[in-house]
């Protein structure tokens, strides 16, 4: 049976939606608050950073292949720079949060900054998608 486009879309969406449950089912062991924070916000930042880095490398590959115009490259570069700065801000906030908790102080959760970095990445990905960037092998799709 050949799956139609929307069926693939549904399968991927379902798989993504199931990830938190998979994580929770394998997440039964008691953890310290620090381990919990790392498993939540630390890994979220790590994933975001990897997605950002691969996207920027794909921009370079597409540029070298002549698949995007210099103007498109400049726009992607600016969007990437914004992501870089927001990721650095989130990393600094997470580290400051950890240091405050280590010192026994109460500190507001840095979750907003991590989520803000995610929003910047979505903007970058939307732009990359608009210009037809192939994020798996370079060039354009």
């Amino acid at each position: 049976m050949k799956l139609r486009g929307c069926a693939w879309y549904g399968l991927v969406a379902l798989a993504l939606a199931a990830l938190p449950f998979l994580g929770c089912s394998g997440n039964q062991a008691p953890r310290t608050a620090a381990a919990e924070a790392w498993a939540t916000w630390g890994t979220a930042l790590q994933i975001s950073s990897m997605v950002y880095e691969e996207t920027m490398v794909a921009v370079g590959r597409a540029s070298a292949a002549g698949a995007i115009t210099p103007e498109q490259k400049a726009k992607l570069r600016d969007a990437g720079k914004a992501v870089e700065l927001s990721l650095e801000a989130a990393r600094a906030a997470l580290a400051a949060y950890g240091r405050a908790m280590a010192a026994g102080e109460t500190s507001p959760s840095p979750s907003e900054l991590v989520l803000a970095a995610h929003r910047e990445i979505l903007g970058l990905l939307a732009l990359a998608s608009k210009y037809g960037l192939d994020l798996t092998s370079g060039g354009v799709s």
Partner: protein
Amino acid sequence: MSIPPALIPYLPTLLQLGVDTIFRSVALWREIQAANPDMDWDAFVAQVEAIEIGDADELIQEGQGGTPPQP
């Protein structure tokens, strides 16, 4: 379920991202499983500070095969 027409041109890229995210998430999930459940805050800070965030210009240059950007 219907897909908004404006989204259709982007479906291949979105699917790539979806599949890529699944593989990455599974790999990270395994890392989390192997991580120390007794992590203290000092170790947390060290792990966070170890997260690498590359410079956008250097990453683009890396994608270009190390060639310097055009003036």
